[in-house]
């Protein structure tokens, strides 16, 4: 079923691109503990990307492995959410993006653990353990920094406001999602929204933050229409593979 390839690409590309963004913090975090934690999250995400993209390559049957998919596709073949390609900006934006994504990621994986496709279920079972911890950490920090100083609250609120237009895409279902849902491979993303609102709402309220009153959502990433940022991520990430296509690394 081609839709499973799409699912694996969507999950894998989210992990790959977010992992790339998070890894940009290496050596530049606000405290050493954050350098260590951010590297850990990036490592988990890159590891998950490897599993999803390997599955996508295998099911696609064109002889592409995870590296070929990561390093030899152009932007319009990437299937990640626009949210994860946003620049890292300040640490508040990085943390808020992580929190908004982690909450979605955890709910998605919890459903995928019960997927009718055993290979999908197996990857989800490995990933959900890591992502549960990611959410615990990002949620805790969002709460603390929201309810910290006036400045930390202002930064977290600004981050939430800036990222809110990228939340809706996580729950926008298309024909591929509906086919996957009909075959019990994956939930339709729209069905996760209520749970996500509950999960994030309690943390954001504890953080004393105001949830933006807008349904507007930028869409397109899951169909390969990205922001300008993705091209630069790929130029950076794919440089060696593109410049030296005959090399083994």
């Amino acid at each position, binding site marked *: 079923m081609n839709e499973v390839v799409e699912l694996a690409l969507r999950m894998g590309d989210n992990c*790959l691109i977010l992992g*790339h963004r998070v*890894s*940009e913090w*290496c*050596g*530049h*975090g*606000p*405290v*050493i*503990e*954050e*350098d*260590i934690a951010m*590297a*850990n999250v*990036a*490592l988990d995400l*890159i*590891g998950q*990307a*490897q599993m999803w*993209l390997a599955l996508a390559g295998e099911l696609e049957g064109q002889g592409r492995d*995870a*590296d070929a998919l*990561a*390093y030899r596709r152009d932007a319009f073949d990437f299937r990640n959410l626009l949210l994860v390609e946003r620049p890292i900006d*300040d*640490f*508040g934006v990085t943390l808020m993006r992580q929190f908004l994504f982690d909450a979605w990621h955890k709910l998605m994986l919890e459903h995928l653990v019960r997927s009718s496709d055993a290979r999908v279920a197996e990857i989800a079972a490995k990933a959900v353990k890591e992502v549960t911890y990611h959410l615990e950490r990002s949620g805790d*920090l969002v*709460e*603390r*920094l929201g*309810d*910290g*100083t006036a*400045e*930390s*609250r202002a*930064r977290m609120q600004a981050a939430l406001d800036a990222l809110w237009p990228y939340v809706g895409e996580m729950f926008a279902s298309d024909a591929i999602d509906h086919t996957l849902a009909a075959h019990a491979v994956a939930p339709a993303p729209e069905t996760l929204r209520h749970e996500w609102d509950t999960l994030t709402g309690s943390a954001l309220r504890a953080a004393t933050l105001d949830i933006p009153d807008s349904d507007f959502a930028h869409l397109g990433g899951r169909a390969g229409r990205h922001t300008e940022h993705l091209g630069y*991520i790929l130029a*950076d*990430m794919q*440089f*060696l*593979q593109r410049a*030296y296509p*005959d*090399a*083994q*690394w």
Partner: protein
Amino acid sequence: MYAQMVQAEGMKAPEEMDERERAFQARIDAGEKIEPKEWMPEGYRKTLIRQISQHAHSEIVGQLPEGNWITRAPTLERKQILLAKVQDEAGHGLYLYCAAETLGVSRDELNAQLLSGKAKYSSIFNYPTLNWADIGAVGWLVDGAAIMNQVALQRTSYGPYARAMVRICKEESFHQRQGYTIMMKMAFGTPAQKRMAQDALNRFWYPSLMMFGPSDKDSVHSAQSMAWKIKINTNDELRQKFVDQTVPQAKYLGLTIPDADLAWNEEKGGYDFSEPDWSEFYAVLKGNGPCNAERMAARQKAWDDGAWYRDGLMANAEKRAERRFAAMPIAAE
């Protein structure tokens, strides 16, 4: 070695020592470990703080040249290995700062010394990483040179430092093997890859030799540190050991060490080799290496940009403590 030219304080001849100092030296001579709350000469404490913090700063600044290639690592596996390595370095920095804290100095104070330029870090991290083989060369040569010193420091007299070294050495030797694996891939790869490997070796060879510090004849601070077992081997001993270990590895890779005078000396059972340009070494220590300004600017920016985060967490911790206190029955009365 990540600690270069650590100035030792309070060198005293045995006849100048008081009874406590003589007893302290006797314990060190007997191979005993000194633990945090025990009495120690002020010079020993200050010298250790200087050395441990220089080592910690080196780990932290050392994240930058390798971090430079994380987003450009050529495969997902290489990216993971590099991320894990840079993460280990942050971890080493953290336990070394903790070891220094047992001597009565806070991490924030040490960080302030780094940013003000008062404290130093290893000269090696002021060199740039310019091609992917540099990531291999840093693991192979830089971690290789660091291990030479750190293996011996597992026997250093100060307990917390010695114990930190045990763990650090395990990880560093793993890093060195990973670095060498990258070098093999590059040296045995396409002509373009081999060119990158040779270029990396050309640039990192002499800076790696400098990591051991100046020649023994010019190293004025060693004697006291060696008496205290804060330093175990001399700079020249370690440098020789490093060269003897590394030359055959370069030969196996088919790479040329950039030293026309490198030759096996049967009589001493080691290689004769050219000294690095020490004027370059002193220039780098003074701040004039290719990347000093950028490395310090990056650390300063991380510190400044992180202020609101650190303040926010502190404010939250205080609020939580107050709420807990207010919820206590006695406080409510």
